[in-house]
């Protein structure tokens, strides 16, 4: 039986932890803008014009920040066995977020300056969007199993030299 050898000898190179943290932090910036800044900005704009909100700004901010952080964490822990579980966690949070939005439909609000009320249903869209984290969760599960059964098996393909 041969002695264990470092994975680096087989044609791949794992970025250092510091580099991955830097990369994760850089990914965090657009993610926070997309998942927190823009949605919260839209909600704040609507709220300032007297339009009731389907979900609170705090809820959107918490879920958005959680998703952004988990996305960055996935990047950082990708070479480790935590990659699968973090992927599952990120997908689970996304599913919980979408389920919350599902129950916020239909969204009814009074149109400012009129006596009219507008209602918008978006359950179909949420159900379609749920497909994305559902598949992501499956992928995380498969990766978790792979890391458990064959540790390091995916590294040459995730980090080719």
């Amino acid at each position, binding site marked *: 039986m*041969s002695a*264990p*050898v*470092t*994975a*680096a*000898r*087989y*044609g791949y190179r*794992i970025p250092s*932890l510091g580099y991955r943290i830097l990369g994760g932090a850089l990914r965090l910036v657009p993610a926070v803008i997309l998942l927190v800044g823009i949605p919260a900005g839209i909600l704040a704009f609507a709220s300032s014009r007297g339009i009731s909100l389907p979900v609170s700004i705090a809820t959107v901010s918490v879920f958005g920040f959680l998703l952004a952080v988990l996305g960055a964490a996935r990047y950082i*822990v990708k*070479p*480790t*066995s*935590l990659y699968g579980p973090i992927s599952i966690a990120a997908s689970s949070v996304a599913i919980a977020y979408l389920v919350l939005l599902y129950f916020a439909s*239909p969204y*009814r609000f009074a149109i400012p300056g*009129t*006596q*009219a*009320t*507008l*209602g*918008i*249903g*978006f359950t*179909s*869209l949420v159900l*379609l*969007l749920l*497909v*994305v*984290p559902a*598949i*992501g969760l*499956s*992928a*995380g599960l*498969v*990766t978790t*199993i*792979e*890391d*458990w*059964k*064959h*540790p*390091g*098996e*995916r*590294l*040459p*393909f995730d980090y080719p030299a």
Partner: protein
Amino acid sequence: MGCGPLLVARWTVADQVLPRYRTPPPLYRLARALRRISVLVLVIILVVMATEVYSAYSTAKSAPTGSNFTTAFAANDTLQVSGQFTFTDGGLYPVSGFTLHVVVRNGSGVLIGTSTAGPVTFQPTVTQVFPIDFYLPIHSAGPATSLLTEDQTLGVGIWANATFGYLFPLSVALNDTRQWGAPFAEFSVGVGAPTTTGGVVDVPVTVQFQNHASFADDGTLDFAVVSSGGATCATGSFVLNVAPGQPYSQTDSVPLASGCSPAGGTVTSTYVTSDGIPISLPSESIP
């Protein structure tokens, strides 16, 4: 499982000569495929959403144009409110299942009529006319009969439902008030004291009202003087051509049937439109 990097793997010397993984292992390929499908689905949804937003913006810009609503008497003791609006869906997706519900309540809040129009599908880039016909029953037994003789503030509730771009059900609810001008406002029929001329007993009947409606009272007003026992003592008719906003006051003497006393009876009136549609007006008691 630990959380440190998986830098250590069990590889044999043979693996260095003949690498174990020329192609990714099945689990890796499965996970990768799932991730790619997930991204693909997300991209497709985002593209569809982008077109939906563009389509919604285009549709919102092409606001419907409505014609003026007209009111007229219709068959079966009803008031018909008619109108239409023209709409061009300027977006990429149809506006399907458009349905309009209207509820009207009188000044006391009593329901006097409901109506539903649709469903209709507005196809993209096609100009369509959506007709609206709304009937208010004004028969004497119903609450809407007051529309004939009483100006009032009507409560109008409008609900519109549609599905935009297959995905988004929309609903608009509007509660508003409308001033209603009665076509026979302050309507009264008075029966005077009978007079005898040359052996014939006549009774003067005076009809007064003001047309506060947006349409003319054009036709005849047939009346009957009925005794307290139910016998018809006299009948007559006035020709009406009362423009909107105009008052009407006319007296006519009609022969009284012999032995018939109008005292304590009633006067029943029926307005017959120029189209021959009979509309029952409230009866009046004779002192």
